[in-house]
């Protein structure tokens, strides 16, 4: 009784029992211990606290986002290897390497982690690193909120990984459709882990969306009106507006699902007047815009990259801006295409099919504009351009399969099949992931002061492109053969096995690509002296982030630049003019704050209480988090620090010296 009150549903059974999960759990705990030991041995705790954990500087936060995302990418890949190994071996009499329950947890984790903690993490990371400098700003609009956003994202990540060690993860797929995700059919804690890690990370994303929207609207430097913004900033703007509109839907939907599960309510249950179809509608009303939330910034990165490496102004800037907003608007009018097969009438299905196809128009226009940016240019084929070429070919193929899926009559035959799985990986890998890798390579010297090794970067891109084709093209055929997603076992007579094996080999090639990327990172750090960016502008680029040193000082620009045109930095280089005056003024920078990580700690433990039904912990930690917010809000401490001119001069001299050495 007391144990029940004290620990809720938590008991010794929560520890993993299957070999493969025990292995995963032990590995995770050991690597955590190793990290803690290393930090202690090198006496880095203070440094970590002062320079990273409590930072509110957008560049530091961006780097932390990317570190988390890369670690999660490795976990998501490990998941995929398990899935493909199971599907390549579990045929006929053989039952493969893992049980069906584990298999279902693994694919649910794979989807959730890749979207929420890899793609979103890389996106927010790169936006943090680049956007303020590109606008000629010293930081984001709300630096402290930015820290809270990141720490909520990190808390969600920790919670989803906790499920590996304590309890289990959801086995209901990455969107957890009810009734399967209801307490009646998934009584364990898995779905609750899923709900709460997304809930926490999602609220962080919502706050980031508001933060970046405000940054773009309010912090553009002098002379930069909206139509002089770089296209990356425009696409981030579109994406963040989508975040602000879409994420509240996710928060509400997850809350209702939790109320159903924990308190026996009937929002989405089959009985008691609930309606599961409502959940499916709501989750996709968030879920479809989510796709564009991810892909728009990737489009923006490609716009900057193509223009820079073609040494030419971006073609059709106005068209590009209109295309972004057409996509933003349309993305909210297509959600039903995810369930044409739910049985709505022909008029409804046809309407959503048509709206979906309309999105192909602005997307196609963007591709033509990129190609015409290259036309009559001087194209320098760096590794970001290899990612771009891979993107053009593969993403276009994904677009074609997308148009097929948009026709309800065709969708009826390939819905939920591996054709669909191949299609959305086609969009997300070659659209979003390639874009983010290109962007990371492109902006790496700006962030760290040295470039990534080009040869290894090109090799990695080729491995990803070839691995992608091997991993996903067989899935298109498998879909035509009637293979559906999420099968942990199938009959040998269906003839699917050879294609699953090829797909598994493709996954291995992609892993090799990731291996080369890690090697590239390590090698580049080792050779950082030779790869050093001494100019602040290694690519002969066009936008304001390249006008400052690499890496930029804490305040980005000692004197804020003033622009009169698009590609102002490029114009200034052409005309040998300067964007800034020499007149230094004191600069305000945000101070460190421990409140962000503390609030998130409270939220994390409260969420853990929600998962295990430990109600006293929920109440206590919610109060703790609220108190931390109040403390920060009501505190008299200044949240910003003034750098006087004398110190500023010294800092400028130092950072110029460091760059030149």
């Amino acid at each position: 009784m007391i144990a029940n009150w004290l620990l809720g549903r938590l008991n010794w059974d929560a520890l993993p029992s299957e070999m493969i999960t025990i292995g995963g759990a032990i590995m995770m705990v050991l690597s955590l211990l190793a990290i803690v030991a290393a930090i202690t041995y090198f006496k880095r705790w203070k440094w970590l606290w002062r320079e990273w954990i409590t930072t509110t500087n957008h560049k530091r936060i961006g780097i932390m986002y990317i570190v988390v995302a890369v670690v999660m990418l490795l976990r998501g890949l490990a998941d995929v290897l398990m899935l493909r190994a199971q599907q390549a071996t579990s045929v006929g009499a053989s039952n493969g390497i893992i049980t069906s329950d584990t298999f279902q947890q693994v694919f649910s984790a794979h989807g959730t982690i890749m979207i929420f903690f890899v793609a979103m993490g890389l996106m927010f990371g790169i936006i943090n690193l680049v956007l303020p400098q590109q606008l000629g700003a010293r930081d984001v609009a709300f630096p402290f909120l930015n820290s809270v956003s990141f720490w909520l994202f990190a808390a969600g990540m920790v919670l989803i990984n906790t499920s590996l060690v304590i309890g289990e993860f959801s086995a209901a797929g990455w969107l957890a459709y009810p009734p399967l995700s209801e307490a009646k059919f998934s009584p364990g804690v898995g779905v609750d882990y899923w709900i709460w890690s997304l809930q926490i990370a999602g609220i962080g994303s919502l706050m980031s969306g508001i933060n970046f929207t405000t940054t773009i609207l309010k912090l553009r430097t002098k002379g930069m009106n909206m139509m002089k913004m770089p296209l990356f900033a425009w696409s981030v703007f579109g994406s963040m507006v989508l975040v602000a509109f879409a994420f509240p839907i996710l928060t509400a939907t997850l809350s209702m699902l939790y109320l159903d599960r924990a308190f026996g309510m009937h929002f989405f249950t089959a009985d008691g007047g609930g309606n599961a179809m409502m959940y499916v509608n709501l989750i996709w009303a968030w879920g479809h815009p989510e796709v564009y939330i991810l892909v728009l910034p990737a489009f923006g990165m490609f716009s900057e990259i193509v223009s820079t490496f073609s040494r030419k102004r971006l073609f059709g800037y106005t068209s590009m801006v209109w295309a972004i907003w057409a996509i933003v608007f349309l993305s909210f009018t297509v959600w039903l295409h995810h369930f044409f097969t739910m049985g709505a009438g022909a008029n409804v299905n046809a309407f959503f099919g048509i709206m979906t196809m309309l999105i192909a128009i602005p997307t196609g226009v963007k591709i033509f504009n990129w190609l015409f940016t290259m036309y009559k240019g001087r194209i320098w084929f760096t590794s970001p351009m290899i990612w771009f070429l891979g993107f053009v070919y593969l993403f276009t193929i994904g677009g074609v399969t997308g148009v097929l899926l948009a026709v309800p009559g065709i969708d009826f035959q390939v819905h939920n099949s591996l054709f669909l799985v191949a299609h959305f990986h086609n969009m997300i890998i070659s659209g979003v992931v390639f874009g983010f890798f290109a962007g990371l390579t492109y902006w790496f010297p700006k962030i760290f002061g040295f470039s990534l090794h080009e040869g290894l970067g090109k090799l990695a891109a080729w491995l990803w492109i070839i691995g992608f084709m091997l991993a996903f093209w067989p899935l298109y055929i498998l879909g035509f053969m009637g293979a559906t997603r999420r099968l942990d076992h199938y009959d040998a007579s269906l003839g699917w096995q050879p294609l699953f094996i090829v797909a598994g080999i493709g996954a291995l090639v992609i892993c090799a690509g990731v291996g080369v990327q890690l090697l590239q990172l390590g090698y580049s750090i080792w050779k950082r002296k030779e790869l050093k960016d001494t100019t602040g502008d290694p690519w002969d680029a066009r936008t304001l982030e390249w006008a400052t040193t690499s890496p930029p000082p804490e305040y980005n620009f000692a004197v804020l630049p003033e622009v009169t045109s698009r590609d102002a930095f490029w114009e200034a280089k052409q005309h040998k003019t300067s964007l800034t005056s020499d007149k230094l003024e004191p600069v305000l920078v945000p101070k460190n704050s421990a409140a962000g990580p503390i609030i998130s700690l409270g939220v994390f433990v409260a969420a853990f209480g929600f998962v295990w039904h430990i109600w006293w912990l929920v109440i206590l930690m919610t109060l703790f988090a609220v108190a931390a917010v109040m403390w920060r809000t009501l505190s008299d401490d200044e949240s910003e620090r003034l750098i006087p001119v004398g110190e500023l001069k010294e800092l400028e001299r130092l950072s110029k010296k460091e760059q030149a050495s």
Partner: protein
Amino acid sequence: MKQTRLRLLIALPFVFVALIIGLAVWYVAGHDVPVLQPRGEIGASEQRLMILALLMSTIVVIPVFVMTVVISWRYRQGNPKRKQYRPDWDSSKLYETIWWGIPILIIGVLCVVTWVSSHQLDPYRKLNPEAPQQKIQVVALDWKWLFIYPDKHIASVNELVIPTNQTISFDITSDTVMNSFWIPALGSQIYAMPGMSTALHLNATEPGTYYGSPANISGSGFASMTFKVRAVSPNEYDAWVLGTQNASRNLTMAAYDALAKPSKNNKVEYFAPVQDGLYDDIVMKYMLPADQPQSQSSDTSTKTDDNMNMNMDMHTPMEMDMTR
């Protein structure tokens, strides 16, 4: 020398892609690929629709693919035949009108195709209203499929036997979580949802044994929930019905409740006779207050098939077919 090596390097990915496509075509030709080799009217229309949409997309895609490689090659830095370089050329009304215009035209045509085909291939549409139809009621369970032939008073588990060249009118529901009823060789899939009845009309034009798929994840026994579809000539079908009607196991509500308990890797089973209005009761039980015994409504049921259908229309407010 360097030029040739570069050319070879550029050609390599294309050779690789050609190889993959060749292998894919070879694989498809040697295997049963039901979506591309349909055995029913609906599946055939959907396959034709797919090819039409694919061909229309290529009008945009082929130019993109060709332009990408040509532009990349010609305007690469260090091209000895130095092509024109116009760094400030950033807009052209003509070009932009072309690539807003052509996709709009193609998508416009595709929109018309979508509208028309959505109505033609609407799962609720009866293929041929005049011809006789075989009604089959489908229930997704944990983890097996129950097929009820209401006018024949028989039922089967995990095996669906249908007469060829006759419209099969499916009513589909679930007595557990959501699933999706899909026979790739015949065409369209539709969700099976508890407390709701969806409809699907298919036919088989060729006799044969086809794969039936549970296309939506439904829990731990999901992968074993496949079913076999046997399309047989009308004569064989009648013989099968007669034989099955001799099966000695009744499907009363009590027998159904036992069947509905979760089980994996189920064998094919037959039942006869089937209690009248069973499907109706399965759908309706989600509408009743939780404390009411589930089988109560069927105990008093004396419905014939015809007024059962009428009752269905009146009693299932959540039936999906509300748009017409």
